[in-house]
């Protein structure tokens, strides 16, 4: 990778999708683990209500973990939505517009979710 530019740039090969493939699986594992961590805490003894729910997310380690998962979700959904647009939308202009929409949509959602955890 260190000399993959200029005249040394590799323009052929079969590895262009493997990074996306791997990142989609790594982010999926992170989200699955987060789901388990959250379910275990929700099922802990105690009446479910605002204080128990907010208590789960008020721990700093949980905020950090949730933040990582929000970023993972945005990346994961980007790879998936990009696949969908590439499979079904052939006109280049429309595909570009939908891809830009996906990025804006995901970045906006991620920013909002991060705000929610860190003003708690």
């Amino acid at each position: 990778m260190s000399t993959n530019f200029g005249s040394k740039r590799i323009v052929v090969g079969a590895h262009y999708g493997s990074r996306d493939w791997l990142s989609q699986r790594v982010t999926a594992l992170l989200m699955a683990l987060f789901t388990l961590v959250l379910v275990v805490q929700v099922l802990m003894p105690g009446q479910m209500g605002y204080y128990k729910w907010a208590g789960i997310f008020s721990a700093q380690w949980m905020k950090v973990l949730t933040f990582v998962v929000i970023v993972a979700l945005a990346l994961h959904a980007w790879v998936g939505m990009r696949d969908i647009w590439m499979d079904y939308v052939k006109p280049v202009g429309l595909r570009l517009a939908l891809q830009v929409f996906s990025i804006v949509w995901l970045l906006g959602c991620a920013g909002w979710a991060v705000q929610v955890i860190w003003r708690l």
Partner: protein
Amino acid sequence: MADTLKERPVYRNIHVSQIVAYRLPPAGIVSILHRVSGAAMFLLLPFVIWLFDNSLTSEISFDRFASVFSAGLGFLPGWFIKLVCLGLIWAYLHHFIAGVRHLWMDMTHSVSKEQGHSSAVITLAASLLLTVALGAKLFGLF
């Protein structure tokens, strides 16, 4: 030469109007539903974060979050919100289990025709059963 060229069949991607005519195996159904559930969750992401926001920000917003399921949201009635959430629950469960199926296939190379069939049936059954169970809880049946 020109005549034979004219008669050559042309195969293109499945058109939307042909979808119903294609009978998919269970693995194919899991695959397309994996995509459909992912796209649905992508589109409903702002709604999920709105719920997350209201459930966490304060006791007052928590009450607003809880009342959405009975009093509704804007012009949308409570049962409709519950139905949307049931759809989200199914989408999450299906996407989760189908994703675990993918990881299991990647790690154990369980990619024979029989394994693909049985794991697809298990995925469909598990996601639907869990959806029914959580849906019963959501609609207050237990």
